[in-house]
C-alpha cells in the first residue's frame, strides 16, 4: 500500500462517525424513492400488509399500464412538457434581454425600474393569484397550457440573475464589438450572451424544476383531467382513488422520472447553478 493510500484511509477512519451519520441520513433521503418504486410494483394488499412487506412477491408491471387506463397520463405528461419548455425558453429569452439592458445600457429610470422589479420578489405570491386568475379568465385561457405558462414567463428573479452575470463581464469586450461595427443586438447576441451560458443554464434549471413540480397555479387554472399537468393529475388521482395505492405510486414514479433523468445527466451543472442562484422553490 502506498503512503498516499494509507493517508487517505487513515483520514477516512478518523471520519468514521461522519461517514456513519451521512450514510444514515442519506438512507433517510433515498428510502422513499426506493420504497415508492417497490410499492409501484406491489399489490395493494402487499402495500397495506401488517407486518410490512417491502419487497413484492412478484413484480406487478401491470400497475404501470393501469395508470394509462385510470388517468389521461400521456396528455398530462405532454402538458407538463409543453408548459415547462415554453416557460423555460420564454424566461431565458426575456430575462437575458432585460438583464443585459439593466446591466449594460444606460437609460432614464433604469435603477428605479430595476428596484421595482426586485420588489416583486419581496411580496408573497398569493397577493397576485386572484387577479392573475381573473386576467387568464378574461383572456379565455382557463383550462389551457397557455394560461398555466403565461404569468411564469415574466421572472424578476431570472432577470436579477442575468443582470448579475452581465455586470461581471469585462467592458472591453463590448467596446471591441462596437469598434467592429456591431449594433447593440449583435453585441448582445454574438459576444455577451455566449459568455453568460452558466447563468443561462442556472435560470433554465431552476425554471424547469419549478415549472414541472408547481401545484397551486395549475390547480387553479385547470380542472379537467385532459388539461392538467402531471402535478395536478397526481393530486387529483390521490383524491379520487385514495385506496388504489399501487397505481398512484406507479403514476408518481413516472411523473418524477423525467426530472431525475435530466438532472442526473447534468448533475454538476445543476448543483453549481443552484448554488449560484441561491434560491428556493
Amino acid at each position: 500500500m502506498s503512503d498516499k493510500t494509507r493517508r487517505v484511509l487513515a483520514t477516512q477512519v478518523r471520519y468514521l462517525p461522519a461517514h456513519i451519520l451521512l450514510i444514515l441520513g442519506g438512507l433517510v433521503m433515498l428510502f422513499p424513492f426506493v420504497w415508492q418504486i417497490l410499492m409501484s410494483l406491489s399489490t395493494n394488499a402487499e402495500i397495506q400488509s401488517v407486518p410490512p412487506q417491502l419487497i413484492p412477491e412478484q413484480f406487478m408491471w401491470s400497475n404501470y399500464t393501469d395508470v394509462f387506463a385510470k388517468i389521461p397520463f400521456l396528455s398530462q405528461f405532454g402538458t407538463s412538457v409543453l408548459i415547462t419548455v415554453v416557460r423555460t425558453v420564454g424566461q431565458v429569452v426575456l430575462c437575458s434581454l432585460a438583464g443585459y439592458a439593466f446591466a449594460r445600457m444606460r437609460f432614464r429610470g433604469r435603477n428605479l425600474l430595476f428596484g421595482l422589479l426586485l420588489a416583486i420578489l419581496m411580496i408573497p405570491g398569493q397577493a397576485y393569484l386572484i387577479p392573475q386568475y381573473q386576467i387568464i379568465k378574461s383572456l379565455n385561457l382557463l383550462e389551457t397550457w397557455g394560461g398555466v405558462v403565461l404569468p411564469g414567463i415574466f421572472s424578476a428573479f431570472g432577470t436579477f440573475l442575468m443582470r448579475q452575470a452581465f455586470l461581471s463581464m469585462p467592458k472591453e469586450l463590448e467596446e471591441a464589438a462596437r469598434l467592429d461595427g456591431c449594433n447593440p443586438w449583435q453585441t448582445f447576441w454574438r459576444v455577451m450572451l455566449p459568455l453568460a451560458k452558466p447563468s443561462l443554464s442556472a435560470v433554465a434549471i431552476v425554471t424547469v424544476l419549478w415549472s414541472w413540480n408547481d401545484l397551486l397555479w395549475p390547480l387553479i387554472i385547470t380542472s379537467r383531467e385532459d388539461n392538467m399537468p402531471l402535478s395536478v393529475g397526481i393530486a387529483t388521482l390521490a383524491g379520487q382513488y385514495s385506496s388504489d395505492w399501487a397505481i398512484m405510486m406507479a403514476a408518481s414514479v413516472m411523473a418524477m422520472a423525467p426530472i431525475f433523468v435530466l438532472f442526473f445527466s447534468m448533475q454538476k451543472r445543476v448543483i453549481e447553478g443552484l448554488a449560484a442562484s441561491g434560491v428556493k422553490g
Partner: protein
Amino acid sequence: MTTTTATGRQAPPKTRTHPMSVGAWPLLFVGPLLIGVAIFYYYPIVSNLYTSFTTTNAFGGDVKFVGVDNYVDLLTRPDLPSALGNTLLYTGVVLLAVPLSVVIASMIELPGLKGRTLYRMLFFMPYLAMPVAIAQVWRIFFNGNFGLLNQMLKAIGISDPPYWLSTPGFAMLAVAFFGIWSSIGFNVIILSSGLKGIPPELYEAASLDGANAWQQFSRVTVPLLTPSIFFLTIMQVIGGFQLFDGLYAMLGPTNPAINESRSLVYLFYNEAFVQQNKGGGAAIAMFIVVLVGIVTAIQFWGQKKWVHYE
C-alpha cells in the same frame, strides 16, 4: 452601480454603425419583460388590494365596495386562529432543517472526505422530487393503520400510536417532517458554497491553539457561516408561511382532518378558488403579505445580534 443621468459622462457613443443605439434599444430589450410584469404583477397587486375591499356574486359579477368588511370577517373567522397556529407550528418545526443542514453540510465538506459527490446527490434528491408525487410515500409511512411508522412504534411497545394524518396537531407534524426532508438538499448546497469560502488557515490556527473538532465547528465554522444561515432562515420562514403543496399532497381535500389542519395559504386557496369568495380571499392574501413582511422585518432587525459579516 452607476447612476443614470441624462448628462452622463460620454453618453454611449452614438455609434456610426447604427443610429438606433441610444434611443430605442433599451426599450426593445427591457420592454417585453416590463409589459408582462406590469400586466401580471403590478396590476394584480393593486387589483388584489382593491378586491379585498369588495364583494361579488359567485360568478365574479355585481361588484360592491364594502370597505373593511372582508378584513373584519377574516379577523373574526373561527378558523383563523387554527390556520395561523398551524402555519406557525409548521414554520417553527421546519426551521429545524437549518441546524440539521449545517451539521450535514459541514460533514460533507470535511477536507479529504471520500464519497462526497454521492452524499451530496443523496441529500439533494428530495429537492428534485415533485412534492405531490413523493408525498404519496409519506402518506403511507404515516398511515395510522398499516403505516411503517406506527408498525415500528408498536414493535417497540407503544401500543396506541396516533393516527398521524387524521389527527389535527399530529398531521401538521407529519407535514413538517416532510417539509424538513424536502428542504435539506437545497440548504446543503447553499451552505456548502459558504463553507468553501472559509479559509483553511483558520482551522489550522484553531487546531494549533488546541481547539478540538467541536470547538472548531462552533467557534470557526458556525460564526463564519452565519450569513448563509441567516439567508436560509429567511427563506425557510417565508417558505413555511407559504405552506400549501406539502399539506395538499399529504392530506388532500377529502381528509377529515383538513378543516382543522389548514395553513393560511390553504385557507386562501379554499376561500378564493373553492368557495369562490374573491373579496375574502384577497383579504387573506393581504393578511399573509403583511404577516410575512413583519416577520421578515423582525428577522432583519434581529440579524445584527448574530450574523457576522466580514
